[in-house]
């Protein structure tokens, strides 16, 4: 986990795509790149909460190493030379998206997020025009018990954004993950139906940050609900901390 830096910290210099940049020590490569308007595609990353490096879409190369690094969880260091775009990186990113698409039955034409989906957007961007692996046709039960929200595990990509906002921003930790690997499932409280999850405050942050159509507000187009950045939430949280 990369904690956000607070207060004064040491400044360092590094190179991203042959561009010299100055950054705060401890910040992630992805954060520094974005601050300097260098684009690295990312999916599970969410500004304002911790990163966990799950989707592997934000991989970058670092000179002097043969492996690739998830830029959202790799801190910058002095003199580091980062490469954000190469044939190999594009190949890896494309595979990451293809495997996510194949893991569950993502059918855009019947999805509430069609047109505002980050997975779909990245598939388009990375040139995923078909899948090279066989799909899983999972059949998880939908949870429509909540008055305002709906949950379709068949569309979930396990990015854990909802878990992180629920825990770190709303502070209730209603949502968590059950099981392992591709069988992982996002659950409410102790795998209760959503309406029986007593800790849920019905704040709606989870559906606002869901990059796909897995968590959504009933009867509302996903494009109106989505929020990619939680900066405002985070600022209010910092103010609370300072005061309290």
């Amino acid at each position, binding site marked *: 986990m990369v904690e956000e830096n607070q207060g004064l910290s040491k400044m360092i210099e590094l190179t991203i795509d042959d561009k010299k940049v100055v950054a705060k020590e401890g910040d992630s490569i992805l954060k520094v790149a974005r601050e300097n308007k260098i684009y690295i595609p990312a999916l599970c990353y969410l500004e304002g909460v911790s990163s966990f490096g799950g989707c592997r879409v934000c991989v970058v190369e670092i000179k002097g190493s043969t492996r690739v690094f998830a830029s959202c969880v790799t801190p910058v260091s002095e003199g580091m030379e980062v490469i954000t775009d190469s044939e190999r990186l594009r190949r890896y990113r494309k595979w990451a998206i293809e495997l996510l698409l194949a893991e569950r039955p993502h059918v855009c034409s*019947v999805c509430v997020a069609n047109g505002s989906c980050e997975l*779909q957007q990245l598939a*388009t961007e990375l040139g995923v025009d*078909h899948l090279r692996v*066989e799909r899983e*046709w999972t*059949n998880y039960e939908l949870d429509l018990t909540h008055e305002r929200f709906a949950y379709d595990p068949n569309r979930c990509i396990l990015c854990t954004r909802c878990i992180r906002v629920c825990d770190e921003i709303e502070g209730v930790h209603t949502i968590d993950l059950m099981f392992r690997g591709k069988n992982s499932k996002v659950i409410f409280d102790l795998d209760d139906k959503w309406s029986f999850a007593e800790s849920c405050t019905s704040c709606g942050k989870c559906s606002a940050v869901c990059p796909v159509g897995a968590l959504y507000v009933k009867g509302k187009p996903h494009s109106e609900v989505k929020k990619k950045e939680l900066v405002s939430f985070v600022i209010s949280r910092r103010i609370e901390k300072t005061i309290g």
Partner: protein
Amino acid sequence: MAKVRLATVWLSGCSGCHMSFLDQDEKLLELADKVELVHSPIADIKDFPENVDITLVEGAVGNEEQLELLKKIRRRTRILIAFGDCAVNGNVTALRNILNEGRENVLKRAYVENTMFNQGVPTQIPRLTERVFALNEVVKVDFYIPGCPPPASLINYVLNEFLDGRIPVLDGKFKYG
């Protein structure tokens, strides 16, 4: 120069991709100068002909007749193009795979449980495959045109690139799903 032999095929899909094909409007006339349409749902030619240069296949494989037809198309076509999302990845057609109930139950669901009148599974239709397949799960596919449906401009671009002897580059021209 002999005209390029073009075929279009409609498997398990809604025909929306063919509608989009027709949406090329006046550009169809330009296309007609360059190709000979040798097989198509809009041309009523029963058997799939030999020696076809380009075939656009709409729809996924949902029954055994289509399975045989697709293999025949592959044998007789130089460039086989998966035309639209059902052909590319199964799309709505393949949603029945989620039920995972086998062909009899799928038919029962459609023709008995969800209807009020004339309930009964039809017997004069080709046998359904156990699950729905995208084209590339059955045969080798040479090119993919994603979209539900693919926009007419994209179809026109792809065809013209092939007709001019180039391989189309879709970067930034299509939308996934």
